[in-house]
């Protein structure tokens, strides 16, 4: 198999090729770097490429394979696999920009983020940092400082956000694996619009140490991939408690509960419902078609309502607006003009919210979580569209959903925000054919700590050909 053909495969196939010495880690990483160089002017997914670091690390892997440590090196599950991370993950030697202009003045990170370390310990090779909405406040990755991330399946359209570079890099075949963050939908929205798999784990599952926060009460980290086995593998490799010392206080520090062994278990015994009401009223025809196709493949015919969903979404909006703004208040006071113009006024308004609204929002969030937990006594899986529609044109201000004219930038997450508000695990699966040319994602949602179930269902959909993530023809 040629190196170009291998680059179209998933991370597991790439690692197997390096493990068998069919290809060297240096050749694989070089191919990824070449693909980035050939396509990034059009896609704008990468904002930093760490070429020297990546080639040095790949050379170390190759040397180790031919040393007396070769047998142990060969067992690393992501051996030689190139990956990239949203620019809010610390990369040693680079300032952590989080998509901003302001953080260009920050000192370089002294070490890598915890999840970067965990993937590299499994043999993966970091190749760079990815475009995003400034400070993760957005759903479109139309970053005014470095330009918009372009959707690899239609370069005139958005990649989604805020982890738009992560979705675009994987869809463009620049890397088979990327990391992003999700506070209100920032993994699931770009996964949906770019046609790749994305996992938002349970709130508190993966440690956020070494990542730039947006809203500590709601921030999650997770992977993007072009196959479910890669998504599960990366997720499994990133699980587990942190070593004593500097730790993420929002992390539950649970022991790893591996999802990969569950992938082949099929659908037997799973009770699956389709979310109606709020979720269908805010979806355009292609989103409804995609959900219906997934539901049919899974044999799910029952429509269920998520209790308190509008209040839950409202709570997430308020907590995000207030907590995100408070984090940046010193800079908002002195240099508001340096913020992203598309989110600056939202940040400024968030700084002014009355404390009583936020305290109440956190109480409503708890009540909402308790009511949804009761729903999960009757269902193992819930389905909903990940975005109201397929990717919109870059620069579009408005879209129409069910006759209602809504602003694109805050509304693209209308279907994801109520789910992350209460920390449920979700796999966004990419569906083709619901829209004439573009993919759109469906959320596979489960009760807290049941990532194994959402990945198991995603694997079944992938096996049935209902969900797939091809590399874009660029």
């Amino acid at each position, binding site marked *: 198999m040629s190196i170009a053909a291998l680059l179209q495969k998933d991370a597991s196939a790439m690692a197997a090729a390096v493990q068998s010495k069919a290809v060297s880690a240096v050749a694989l990483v070089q191919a990824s770097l070449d693909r980035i160089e050939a396509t990034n002017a059009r896609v704008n997914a990468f904002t930093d490429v760490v070429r020297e670091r990546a080639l040095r690390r790949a050379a170390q892997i190759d040397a180790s394979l031919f040393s007396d440590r070769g047998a142990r090196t060969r067992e690393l599950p992501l051996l030689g696999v190139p990956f990239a991370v949203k620019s809010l993950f610390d990369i040693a030697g680079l300032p952590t920009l989080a998509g901003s202009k302001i953080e260009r003045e920050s000192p370089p990170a002294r070490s890598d983020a915890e999840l970067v370390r965990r993937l590299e310990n499994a043999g993966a090779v970091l190749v760079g940092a990815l475009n995003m909405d400034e400070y993760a406040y957005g759903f479109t990755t139309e970053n005014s400082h470095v330009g918009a991330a372009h959707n690899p399946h239609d370069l005139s359209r958005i990649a989604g956000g805020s982890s738009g570079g992560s979705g675009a890099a994987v869809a463009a075949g620049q890397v088979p694996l990327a990391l992003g963050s999700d506070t209100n939908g920032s993994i699931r929205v770009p996964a949906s619009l770019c046609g790749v798999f994305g996992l938002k784990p349970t709130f508190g599952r993966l440690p956020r140490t070494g990542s730039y926060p947006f809203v500590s009460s709601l921030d999650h980290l997770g992977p993007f991939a072009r196959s479910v086995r890669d998504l599960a593998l990366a997720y499994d490799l990133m699980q587990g408690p942190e070593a004593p010392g500097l730790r993420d206080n929002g992390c539950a520090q649970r022991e790893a509960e591996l999802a990969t062994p569950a992938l082949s278990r099929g659908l037997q015994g799973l009770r699956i419902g389709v979310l109606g009401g709020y979720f269908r009223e805010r979806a355009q025809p292609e989103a409804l078609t995609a959900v219906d196709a997934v539901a049919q493949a899974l044999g799910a015919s029952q429509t269920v309502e998520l209790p308190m969903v509008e209040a839950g979404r409202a709570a997430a909006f308020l907590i995000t607006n207030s907590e995100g703004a408070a984090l940046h208040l010193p800079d908002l006071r002195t240099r508001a003009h340096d913020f992203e113009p598309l989110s600056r006024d*939202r940040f400024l308004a968030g700084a*002014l919210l009355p404390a009583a609204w936020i305290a*109440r929002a956190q109480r409503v*969030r708890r009540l909402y979580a308790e009511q949804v937990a009761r729903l999960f006594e009757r269902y193992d899986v819930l389905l909903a569209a990940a975005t109201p529609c397929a990717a919109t044109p870059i620069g579009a201000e408005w879209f129409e959903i069910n006759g209602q004219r809504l602003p694109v930038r805050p509304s693209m997450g209308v279907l994801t925000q109520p789910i992350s508000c209460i920390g449920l695990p979700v796999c966004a699966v990419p569906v083709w054919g619901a829209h004439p040319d573009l993919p759109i994602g469906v959320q596979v949602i489960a009760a807290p700590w049941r990532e194994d179930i959402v990945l198991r269902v995603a694997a079944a959909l992938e096996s049935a050909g209902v969900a797939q993530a091809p590399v874009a023809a660029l």
Partner: protein
Amino acid sequence: MTPEQLVSYVDATSAALGLRLRADHRPGVVRFFGLAAEFAALVEAVPLGPHDEPAVNFTPVTPREKEA
């Protein structure tokens, strides 16, 4: 809140916080504060009792053990 109340509130609280709003930022800030007020109304409409606790929990910090 009426449109006038929104503007009064934004002006008063931004001054109290030392947040000087530029003339070209102020209309957007008022608009987004108005959006937040709409979401706040949804949250206010949920009946809550005194025992409905917030979703945020605090974990006390244990001091590191002294070295021998």
